[in-house]
């Protein structure tokens, strides 16, 4: 399309590519480093000095982590909570966002403020726990979904996108006699795909990474455990000899306890195991952020 590059444009490009390449190097390093440690012999890793490449190749860390049978069921639960949780929160947040983007909505201000305030209020851990208990949500899958039906952050982001939509589109829909439902479902939702993809990514990653709610509410129900929580357990297990600082008595056991894995190696391995699946989702969502995708359909 653009054929005539000016000199300053070219300079800009060079600087830009250089900067971005530098950024890539800096941000790729931690991941490569973690990868290298995860594939390095755990005992050898104690010596330090592993940077981009394993020194003594070993699959033992993965063997150790993946031999834990509980993680397979936990992965299924993680996927379920991620998918269901994300779909529910994106849909519900979008719906409320649409309502509060309507300037004439009678409850607009009330609803907006009621939601925003909760971002900064927290009743505390124990009251929340008691609430979940009283709702009979302990040891149930729904405790992963229900408390997060609407993410206020997501809600606000979606609303500001809807606010940014050309008024003319909504106006013409209204003139066509479309009610709120139809406007929402057939006009607003499709137009908001980029932001919905963004919000889906945010809440998907959040759901995938959560383990604190498992710890609080579902820790004694192994069937509902999630991948992250099981990985935390494995990490803890590898830590065994370290945490038993209770008198010398534990020591004789502790010495024998020190197997082939170390917390550092397990942590690196679990980082890879837990993050690769969710990272792989990214390219699928990414296309929605690519500029210009939807604007063609708008024809403002």
């Amino acid at each position, binding site marked *: 399309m653009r054929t005539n590059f000016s000199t300053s444009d070219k300079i*800009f490009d060079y600087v830009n590519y250089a900067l971005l390449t530098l950024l890539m190097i800096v941000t790729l390093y*931690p991941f490569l480093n973690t990868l290298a440690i995860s594939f390095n012999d755990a005992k050898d890793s104690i010596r330090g000095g592993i940077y981009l490449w394993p020194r003594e190749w070993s699959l033992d860390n993965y063997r150790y982590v993946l031999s834990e049978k509980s993680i397979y069921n936990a992965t299924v639960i993680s996927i379920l909570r991620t998918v269901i949780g994300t779909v529910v929160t994106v849909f519900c947040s979008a719906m409320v966002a649409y309502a509060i983007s309507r300037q004439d909505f009678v409850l607009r201000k009330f609803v907006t403020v009621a939601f925003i305030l909760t971002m900064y209020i927290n009743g505390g851990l124990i009251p929340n726990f008691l609430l979940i208990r009283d709702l009979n949500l302990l040891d149930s899958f729904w405790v992963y979904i229900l408390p997060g039906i609407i993410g206020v952050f997501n809600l606000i982001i979606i609303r500001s996108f809807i606010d940014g939509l050309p008024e003319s589109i909504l106006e013409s829909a209204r003139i066509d006699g479309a009610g709120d439902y139809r406007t929402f479902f057939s006009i607003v939702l499709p137009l908001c795909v980029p932001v919905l993809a963004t919000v889906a990514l945010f809440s998907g990653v959040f759901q995938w990474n959560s383990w604190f709610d498992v710890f609080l509410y579902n820790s004694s129900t192994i069937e509902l455990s999630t991948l992250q929580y099981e990985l935390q357990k494995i990490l803890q297990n590898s830590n065994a000899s370290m945490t038993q600082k209770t008198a010398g008595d534990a020591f004789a056991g502790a010495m024998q306890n020190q197997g082939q894995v170390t917390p550092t190696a397990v942590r690196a391995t679990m980082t890879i195991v837990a993050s690769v699946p969710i*990272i792989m989702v*990214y390219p699928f969502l990414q296309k929605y*952020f690519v500029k210009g995708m939807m604007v063609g359909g708008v024809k403002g």
Partner: protein
Amino acid sequence: MEKVEVAETVHYPKKSPNKFLQFLKQCGKQHALLVMTIPFLIWLFIFKYLPIWGWTIAFQNYRPSKSFAEQEWVGFQHFAFLFEDERFLRVLRNTLAMSGINLVLGFVTAIALALLLNEVRVVVFKRVVQTISYLPHFISWVVAAGIVQQTLSPDGIINELLLRFGLIKEDILFLGIGEYFWGIFGAAHVWKDVGWNTIVYLAAMTMIDPAQYEAAEIDGAGRIQRMWHITLPGIKSVIVVLLIMNIGYLLESGFEPQYLLGNGMNVDYSENIDIFVLKYGIAQGNFSLSIAAGMFKTVVSFILLFAANNIAKRLGEARLY
């Protein structure tokens, strides 16, 4: 370009003498919107407002095992413990400084990166940069802090480079110098989250009408001018809304990086409210102190939020509510 303001000037319900009747009429007309929100208001009330009874805990010597009636009431004792501690001001200063740095650096770098990415014409490169830059977000702080410590240690790469270029004469204990801590903290945050934070701006940029760029090009605007006059205004409302929300979070600077990178030598700069509460509250089984601190933060958040929102309103920018 003026979308935001446009959105603000649409139909307000007309004032009428019988307001209530008017209100009901409106409700009837907007039954669809009510159906879309009221269930969630109920949800909101149950899940977010009901647990606020927990604030009473701040005024008790709370023991989880006791019923509400059996708790020992101590008035403002926990608040006093918090505010009267000689470290409180320092801890508050650190909190504000670190989240302030985070706020400014976080916004500037994420927006800058989004702008730069937006200018990349090679789609594959753009995608690769974007994907890679968000990888550190998936590394836990424990691992990330380990890498930071390694990088900044006397035999780490930073010292090595500085020595090689003759910029310093002997190794610097970066993490042992309190004054450096905020900078290290801010840089670490940017490094870890810049790619992640960029996503929302990139999404916002997809909403900009390409016709605007074409028009600008015809007018002979350069790349930087286009960025400044088209892209940036195009995402302004998102920026402003995010900014207001984050200003409300100024007392929340997190605790993991501070805790993990903190040590006895930089404690005067690394310890923030959350760490203080962790040490004297949760670690001692004192739930009341953490609730008291939480209440304090909430109050401050409300004030900041209100102020920020009002300023935005005065400036005619997008608002949070």
